[in-house]
């Protein structure tokens, strides 16, 4: 009798608990849905579908871009794009619809700026586009990294690949400052390093418009006091930035600065792709100057680094 009562009581509790759990689960689902919509936007699935149409229906991307993987990656990047860095995007309508070369300043010790430019083109451009960046050759030798980069549309940085992507009508992102730009110390923030000439040769050769892009906010995400040369030499890496926050436990995330991405008006260049370096350098100077001006204006309009 005793035991039956206990069992019945237990069943009673369970009977009440099940609807409660279900209600909780529903509430949780509503909350995540809400968060998802806030994070990804209402039209996320449509945007993903547009990409699917472009890449899957044309018989697959020859470089291995995979929409399903990219969709997941976009969800992660969306958190940084919308909530962490609260990116403001200006002039995205300047990006022409066909092939285009985005030329941006590079900064922030860790190349998050590339991901943010990429997510801007996915979340804020109409229609959404996939930004293809050129990654260093040695990443192809790294397990997981190489497969992941392939699937999210990143391509090994050789000129033939860049040419082919542009001929396919893709958006190509170039950082002509290279590693020197990304590893700038804090006192040289928003000052452009010398530009390489390769992107200009490519643009002229393939008759591609160049859209200058100024990324503001990345410079302050990690404050680098300088480059520890001996450590870089020891580890055989190009630079070893001295970032104080790296030594504070739990502060390894970048500082939540506010990103502002300015897309400038497209620039077209004529001439010979095999022109002398000095001829190309003048054109490159023009692009560099444009980005520099955009940075200056953007910084003047900015009220706060974080807000």
């Amino acid at each position, binding site marked *: 009798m005793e035991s039956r009562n206990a069992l019945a009581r237990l069943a009673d509790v369970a009977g009440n608990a099940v609807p409660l759990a279900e209600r909780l689960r529903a509430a949780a689902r509503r909350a995540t849905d809400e968060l998802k919509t806030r994070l990804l936007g209402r039209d996320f699935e449509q945007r993903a579908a547009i990409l699917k149409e472009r890449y899957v229906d044309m*018989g*697959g991307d*020859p*470089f*291995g871009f*995979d929409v399903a993987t990219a969709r997941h990656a976009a969800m992660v990047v969306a958190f940084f794009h919308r909530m962490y860095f609260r990116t403001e995007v200006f002039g995205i309508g300047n990006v022409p619809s066909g092939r285009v070369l985005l030329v941006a300043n590079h900064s922030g010790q860790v190349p998050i700026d590339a991901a943010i430019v990429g997510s801007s083109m996915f979340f804020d451009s109409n229609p959404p586009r996939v930004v293809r960046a050129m990654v260093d*050759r*040695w990443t*192809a*030798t*790294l*397990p*997981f*990294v*190489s*497969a992941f980069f*392939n*699937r999210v549309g990143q*391509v*090994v940085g*050789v*000129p*033939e*690949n860049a040419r*082919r992507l542009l001929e396919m009508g893709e958006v190509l992102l170039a950082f002509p400052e290279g590693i020197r730009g990304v590893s700038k110390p804090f006192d040289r923030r928003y000052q452009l390093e010398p530009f390489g000439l390769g992107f200009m040769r490519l643009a002229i050769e393939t008759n591609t418009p160049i859209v200058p892009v100024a990324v503001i906010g990345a410079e302050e995400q990690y404050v680098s006091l300088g480059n520890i040369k001996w450590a870089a030499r020891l580890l055989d890496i190009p630079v070893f930035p001295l970032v104080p926050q790296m030594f504070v436990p739990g502060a390894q995330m970048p500082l939540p600065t506010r990103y502002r991405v300015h897309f400038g008006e497209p620039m077209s260049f004529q001439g010979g792709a095999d022109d002398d370096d000095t001829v190309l350098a003048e054109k490159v100077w023009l692009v560099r100057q444009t980005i520099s001006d955009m940075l200056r204006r953007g910084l003047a309009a900015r009220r706060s680094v974080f807000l």
Partner: protein
Amino acid sequence: MTVAVTTSGADDRAIVITGICGRLGRRLTRALHREARVIGLDRRAFPDRPRDIEHHEIDLRSRRAKDIFRGGGVRALVHLGVMHNPRDSTEDHHSWNVVAFQHLLEYAERYRVPKVVLLSSANVYGPRPDNPQFLTEEAPLLGAGPFSEIRDLVGLDMCAQSYLWRYAATEAVILRPSHILGTVRNAPSNYLRLKVVPRLLGFDPMMQVVHQDDVVAALRLALTPGIRGIFNVGGPPPVSLSRALQMLGRSAVSVPHGVARAAVDRLFKWRVTDFPAPELDFIRYVCMVDDALARSVLGYRPKHDLLETLRAVDEERWV
């Protein structure tokens, strides 16, 4: 010299096919023998050959091979007889492949054979992390680096190249197809035939495959008078390795590269597998070709789509 002799149709001079007993050779023979006289050269016997073809069971290096060319009755030489057996010694390999081919080229030159076709392979470029996604014919042949077996193929390819530039009277054609799939017994087809396919953990390169019959079609196009040069032969649009295995319905196991390399090395020594360990790079890095030239000059179009091409490796199970 030998300009006006390659009129089509009523040409009764023979097409010599070396390595005719291979599966690709047989397919090519079946495609050609009704419209041209075919002479086969192979060390192996060809028991079920069509009745109208002449077969010589000889070593390519022997004097008898020369006699076939001597009469001047040969209008084309198609060299499929590239040996790729990782079990043979390097000397055997070299002597069979490079020396034999040099002899053949010498006969072709001396007896004025108007056309020489070599079936090389896209493997001569080699899988490398810094390869462009699609290699053109001008890309350097770096496949020889870690692969002693491919070194001969690169040697052969280079022989044919220098021949191509030296003798204007002969139209030399080098075809470099990507992975040929089908009933053929080559490494990529054998690999895809495995019940459980090993992959390298964290690597998923794009793959380019081509159906064996599309290669036969490319070889026939190469025989067209007036065609000379080097042509990459690609197939349907490329696909990632994981997707290819998915399409074939194979189950895959992912193995870290270091472990896989050591294991394959050991298994190769124990004669359990015939995959040499350095060839693991083919499932690690990209090695695909740009076949724009073959499409525009040869008029080559792959007829088999991706699924058909992949499924071709299983064909024999049902026959």
